[in-house]
């Protein structure tokens, strides 16, 4: 996907709707940023009018607020409360149903309708998170057909960040702020004396084919420079940072560090961090039975290493304490994910920091272990 190098184009902001219409005409359901209930959330959208024009956000640990800026910008916000994960890896999914008929069990093999999404406004961190989940669900030998089918049909419109959020640290993780790969189309919103427009780059044949049908001229060098300047400015404005140098090894040899107890004193084991994390993928499977017609169904639900049942095996819980659950989550994310999937499990989107109800900050906790690395 990343190998295709086409000359960037420039798309007038007034023509953004053409891109949306082209994607709809290609059969995609648009999912994009919408201001709703006090946050900019990824929801089904119809067109440009749904986008958060003039809205931005403030994010800090345990705190999110929507701000009205009155600016013309459509994409002037940081990470949404939840990632695109819920569209590619749904929180609840029926795996199959079966019924008893004349003493035999019949499996219903009704074909599951697979949605064909176009994601509008994917940030570089989330592109990296999708790449991680690709490795987990598709590239790890075992293919998850539900994820793979949604992923294959999805069209990704990246929008480069024009602002770093208070809990962002993609610069530290090498995952942003500029989308480098993994997108079909990447936009950078430009607002200056040359007008309100988007630098448009394509990253796949599908992206090029859509872009070719748009009224978008070749970009001027000034547009390309302006986009690069935005990414450079954002990279220098991260709300957080994480020193990843040698971190996997440091964490791996500090499993008995007293700091895990200090975190456990604050951690609620509520699982919010894992739910909002764009790379966390764990699920549990449960069966249901109907009283009415003898139908049984098997469902797959998002689960979390913070829930007790998740590590329950015959004889008891493997991770009974909050200390062991938090340590499992953080060390998986930042340490042994490398061994398992060949990268960090963290993309620096900052969601776990913002959406922790008591403001636990993964960058602070990892730094605390590093600062007192005794092993």
């Amino acid at each position, binding site marked *: 996907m990343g190998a295709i190098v086409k000359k960037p184009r420039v798309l007038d902001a007034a023509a953004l709707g053409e891109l949306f219409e082209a994607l709809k005409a290609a059969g995609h359901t648009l999912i994009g940023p919408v201001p*709703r*209930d*006090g*946050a900019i*959330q990824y929801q089904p959208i119809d067109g440009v009018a749904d986008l958060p024009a003039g809205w931005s956000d403030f994010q800090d640990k*345990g*705190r*999110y*607020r*929507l701000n009205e800026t009155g600016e013309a910008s459509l994409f002037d916000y940081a990470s949404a*409360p*939840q990632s695109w994960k*819920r569209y590619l890896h749904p*929180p*609840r999914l029926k795996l199959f149903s079966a019924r008893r008929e004349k003493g035999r069990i019949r499996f219903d093999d009704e074909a599951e309708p697979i949605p064909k999404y176009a994601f509008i406004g994917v940030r570089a961190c989330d592109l990296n998170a999708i790449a991680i989940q690709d490795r987990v669900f598709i590239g790890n030998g075992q293919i998850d057909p539900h994820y793979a089918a949604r992923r294959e049909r999805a069209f990704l419109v990246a929008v480069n960040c024009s602002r770093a959020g208070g809990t962002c640290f993609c610069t530290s993780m090498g995952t942003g702020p500029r989308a480098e790969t993994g997108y079909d189309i990447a936009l950078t919103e430009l607002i200056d004396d040359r007008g309100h427009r988007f630098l448009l780059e394509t990253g796949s044949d599908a992206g090029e084919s859509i872009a070719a049908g748009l009224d978008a001229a070749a970009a001027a060098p000034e547009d390309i420079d302006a986009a690069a300047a935005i990414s450079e400015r954002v990279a220098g404005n991260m709300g957080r940072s994480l020193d990843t140098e040698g971190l996997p090894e440091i964490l791996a040899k500090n499993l008995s560090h007293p700091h895990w107890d200090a975190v456990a*004193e*604050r*951690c*609620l*084991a*509520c*699982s*919010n961090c894992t*739910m*909002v994390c764009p790379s966390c993928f764990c699920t549990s499977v*449960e*069966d*249901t*039975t*109907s*009283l*009415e017609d003898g139908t*049984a169904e098997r469902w797959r*639900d*998002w689960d*979390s290493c*913070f*829930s*007790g*049942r998740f590590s329950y095996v015959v004889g008891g819980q493997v991770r009974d304490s*909050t200390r062991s*659950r938090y340590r499992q989550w953080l060390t998986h994310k930042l340490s042994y994910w490398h061994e398992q999937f060949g990268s960090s499990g963290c993309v620096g989107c900052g969601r776990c920091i*913002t*959406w922790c*109800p*008591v*403001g636990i900050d993964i960058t602070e906790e990892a730094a605390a272990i590093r600062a007192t690395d005794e092993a």
Partner: protein
Amino acid sequence: MPGNGKLRLAVWKFASCDGCQLSLLNCEQELLALLEHVEIAYFLEASRATSRGPYDLSLVEGSITTPHDAERIHAIRRDSKLLVTIGACATAGGIQALRNFRDVKAFTSIVYPNPDYIRSLRRSTPIRDHVEVDFELRGCPIDKGQLLEVVGALLAGRRPGIPTYSVCHECKRAANLCVMVAHGTPCLGPVTNAGCGAICPAFTRGCYGCFGPAEKTNTASLTNWLRDNGENRKTLVRSFRSFNADAEAFRKESEALEQAGKRHG
């Protein structure tokens, strides 16, 4: 099971408001299907026709608050193969367990003209303090879906899929926006057991803790955070002292807050 192959069900009431047993009658869509599998042998809220035990399944609503009830529950246990308690009263003592923090005699002397007739225990206690309980369904009131799940699982011979994690889990799956983080609304969701479907946060209100403490709770951390964000100690005591006031994690937290209040004035 009796000759007709149906599960014999009994529903019992102790100190309670009847809301949980009404959840069974509220299963309007499912009731007919349920009756294909279940014989209602004793359920005064539904029918005055009753039949004797033993019962395959007893659903017990309410808490133990009188010496008479403390005896009666043993007879029910003896007559029941499985005993499932339903609701905050039966599983945690209910709202009436607020008496456990005070002197109940002081209340009866104010409320009743002749308090000598009142035979009330000092504390309101959950059923499991008196007899062995096979399964507990939380909530004020219980969730009818969970009730059907327990009965359905029993009929199918499988474990009921009743979660023990926090309400946050349900909120995030449903894509509810977190009212604490995004609005600064105090919410007991992070320490409360799931099961209601996160109804209150779905309507942008904080969780009231109707389903009691989750499997793992850190109430102290939650109150520290809320205190740092300007929440009043007395308000927090009251928020832990509602339907599940005497559930261990909630009781300890409200008592700790009260103690701290006395120290700091």
